[in-house]
């Protein structure tokens, strides 16, 4: 199979409007969590979230008008706007703007989302109930369905290769990148824009995830302490929003045009728990088999892994199961750093795997691993360094990024420093 490398990065996150701003704030140990002010949360069990800082674009704020015309933004849910921003950044970073028919047809898009336009679906339902079907906008469907992130990006940039979307809950972003890498490896495309986008911060999603008992509810007065993976006081995840998109490229294609190569995608593993709709399987076997599959595909020994970007959502059950699965994978090779960046960004659901793959790439680039915030008292003992509180300078040649989703859907990516 053909080799696949990462040549461009793009992101909008609760920490800021770009990859650089987000990464520097992440390394500094900043948190994106705050009490939700955009709508009434008085009757919700969870009143906090990690929202994108909106603004005119200065000081790391996100100005959506830079990436999509205001009249077009009005027609779509924010996850599509975030995808447009991250995709535009990634193409600029890769310096890949195909204009010939051949190059356009060799470039595809695979951006997914976990729950897509659920906010807009809620609003339209209210309109239908109050005003009837004649008041439903013609842009209701094309502005809400998940594959329209890929669709809008392809239209904006003239990308005529494979146009696809992944919907696998919180594994979406990792599956999108892994599947897109496969499409390049198998020759269906030479370049792919891949990642995830999510805009879940609304009353309906907060009520729904709280009903699943997945959200933190005990830190409404101290939002920045709420996301605390591996800590004994963790009580659920904090919702985040944003998008991450990478440019993946066939190795020779990238070399031939002199592209900057961040890292190589050497491993991708998938598995299913076949256990429960929301709970991870109690033996952590799904996570273990997923990581093992990625390691096997990468052709490396688990001891070669230097950094693991954990799924680590800060839920009581999931964190320890993932840690046990990692310990089983590594055996005695515990000289590894494993952190959960969700402690800072919150959980971006379908975009999480994408931004976390980008953090893994940047850990390789800068030889630094981001911290796990709020890890005051680990709930279990482990020989693995969970990088509490502060980033660490470390040798990182190989990084693994885990994502696990509702339905028992698991994805692991392995990235290696490019030679």
């Amino acid at each position, binding site marked *: 199979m053909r080799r696949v490398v990462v040549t461009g990065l793009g992101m909008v996150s609760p920490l800021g409007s770009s990859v650089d701003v987000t990464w520097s704030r992440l390394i500094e140990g900043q948190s994106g969590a705050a009490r939700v002010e955009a709508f009434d949360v008085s009757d919700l069990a969870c009143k906090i979230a990690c929202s994108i800082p909106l603004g005119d674009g200065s000081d790391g704020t996100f100005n959506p008008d830079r990436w999509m015309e*205001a009249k077009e933004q009005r027609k779509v849910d924010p996850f599509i706007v975030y995808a447009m921003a991250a995709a535009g950044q990634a193409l600029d970073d890769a310096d890949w703007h195909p204009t010939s028919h051949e190059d356009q047809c060799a470039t595809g898009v695979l951006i997914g989302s976990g729950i897509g336009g659920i906010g807009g679906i809620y609003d339209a339902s209210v309109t239908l109930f109050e005003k009837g079907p004649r008041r439903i*906008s*013609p842009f209701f469907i094309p502005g809400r369905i998940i594959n329209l992130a890929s669709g809008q990006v392809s239209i904006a940039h003239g990308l005529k290769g494979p146009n696809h979307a992944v919907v696998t809950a919180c594994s979406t972003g990792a599956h999108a990148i892994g599947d897109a890498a496969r499409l390049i490896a198998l020759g269906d495309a030479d370049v792919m824009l891949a990642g995830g986008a999510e805009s879940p911060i609304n009353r309906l999603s907060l009520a729904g995830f709280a009903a699943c008992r997945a959200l933190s509810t005990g830190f409404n007065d101290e939002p920045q302490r709420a996301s605390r993976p591996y800590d004994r006081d963790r009580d659920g995840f904090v919702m985040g929003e944003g998008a991450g998109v990478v440019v993946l490229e066939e190795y020779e294609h990238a070399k031939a045009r002199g592209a900057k190569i961040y890292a190589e995608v050497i491993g991708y593993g998938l598995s299913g728990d076949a256990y429960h709709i929301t709970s991870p399987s109690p033996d952590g076997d799904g996570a273990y088999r997923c990581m093992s599959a990625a390691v096997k595909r990468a052709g490396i020994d688990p001891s070669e892994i230097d950094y693991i970007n954990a799924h680590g959502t800060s839920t009581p059950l999931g964190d320890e199961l993932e840690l046990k699965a990692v310990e089983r994978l590594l055996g005695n090779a515990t000289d590894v750093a494993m952190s959960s960046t969700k402690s800072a960004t919150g959980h971006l659901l379908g975009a999480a795997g994408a931004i976390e793959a980008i953090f893994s790439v940047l850990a390789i680039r800068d030889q630094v691993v981001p911290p796990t915030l709020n890890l005051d008292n680990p709930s279990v003992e482990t020989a693995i360094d969970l990088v509490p509180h502060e980033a660490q300078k470390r040798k990182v040649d190989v990084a693994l990024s885990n994502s696990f989703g509702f339905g028992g859907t698991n994805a692991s990516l392995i990235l290696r420093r490019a030679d």
Partner: protein
Amino acid sequence: MSDIADRVKKIVVDHLGVEPEKVTPNANFIDDLGADSLDTVELVMAFEEEFNVEIPDDAAETIQTVGDAIKFLEKNSG
């Protein structure tokens, strides 16, 4: 311009994001103002809402210019 014409013009400017000077009676929504077929459906909905009228589909199909809309609404709105 009549009150109806002003209100139509404002809706067209808001929905299509075009310069107000371009919104002349002869301006065709698709050919001159950059609308697509979905935009025209939404415009008709906005006219219905603003003028509290129902515009049946066969009538909506005849509304292709700003002037068509003004004429229809002058005739049919309360």
